[in-house]
């Protein structure tokens, strides 16, 4: 596909998601209390969108992933939250 064809197919969808993300960050700013590690993880990933890297989706996923290699001793709950608590804040 040409770039224009990609834009024709996906620009409005990407525009919508970008505005949703901006509105989410505004909503967080308007709210009270301390934010947990998830907000820092999301903010740390944002610059990856503007990078010249052609694998931005992979880079964002890696920025939100647990990079450690050893199994943990036991599970504390079953769920995942989408960001790694151990990431620098």
């Amino acid at each position, binding site marked *: *596909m040409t770039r224009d064809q990609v834009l024709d*197919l*996906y620009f409005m*969808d990407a525009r919508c998601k970008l505005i949703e993300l901006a509105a989410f960050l505004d909503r967080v700013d308007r709210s009270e209390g301390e934010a947990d590690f998830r907000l820092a993880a999301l903010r740390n990933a944002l610059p990856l969108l503007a990078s010249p890297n052609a*694998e931005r*989706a*992979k880079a964002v*996923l*890696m920025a*939100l*992933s*647990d*990079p*450690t*290699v050893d*199994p*943990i*001793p*036991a*599970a*504390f*709950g*079953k*769920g*995942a*939250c*989408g*960001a*790694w608590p151990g990431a620098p804040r």
Partner: protein
Amino acid sequence: MRYIEPHAHMVSRITDDYEAMRLAGCEAICEPAFWAGFDRSSVDGFYDYFCQLTDYEPKRAAKFGLPHFSWLCINPKESEDMGLARDVLGIIPEFLKRSNVLGIGEIGLNKNTRNEITILEEHIDLAAKYDQLILVHTPHLEDKFKGTRLILDVLRADSRIHPGRVIIDHVEEHTVEMVLEAGFWAGITLYPESKATPARAVDMVERAGMKNIWLNCACDWGRSEPLAVPRTAIEMGRRGHSKEAVDALVFGNPVRFLSQNPRFQIS
């Protein structure tokens, strides 16, 4: 359009979903054992669940002309309790004789714990002893990258396992390459939020090639879309992929993998 749904938890879906999938071109459904959303209290709960997967659910699917196949295991979310997990592993062999069972799955990891890894190894041992195909679940979200690496290590450590008989499901952009490069099949799961969208799935296929990849909806009791595979086929068409290429991905590939078990027969 024709397609195979190789991973769907139909016990959690309404009968209308069977009809909608059939109308969309589905030719067969495969259902791996999974977590019910709560922990079962004993092996008896799994016995009943395996009966549901191998007896009741095929009859429900057959009402819509859909062959129904299943995979058996204890899901990694429940394998932290190793006593229960081993009790469940003990009853699986008697169910492997049932005519719609294709293999062991969806095994894998959830929070990447030592107990989960031990039970994963024991599932792999069971699959090797009974010469079964393997369907692997990779962890969710932040745990996926680490878990996928650990799973690959465990699989590669067992010389009886042939990568071409193992599909590692729920790959995303950061894990698809390592799975395919290790010789395993890769499954892309289409979820509204937590896994891949149709557009991202087609991106991955365009980059990685479609040789050993299947698509699945993994629809269950959470937010999920039983028609995600045909929607992704439409997405491929919007980008100019040929009908033959779409057919190879959504029908030919799952048939090629699943036919390694001669029980997988569709008319």
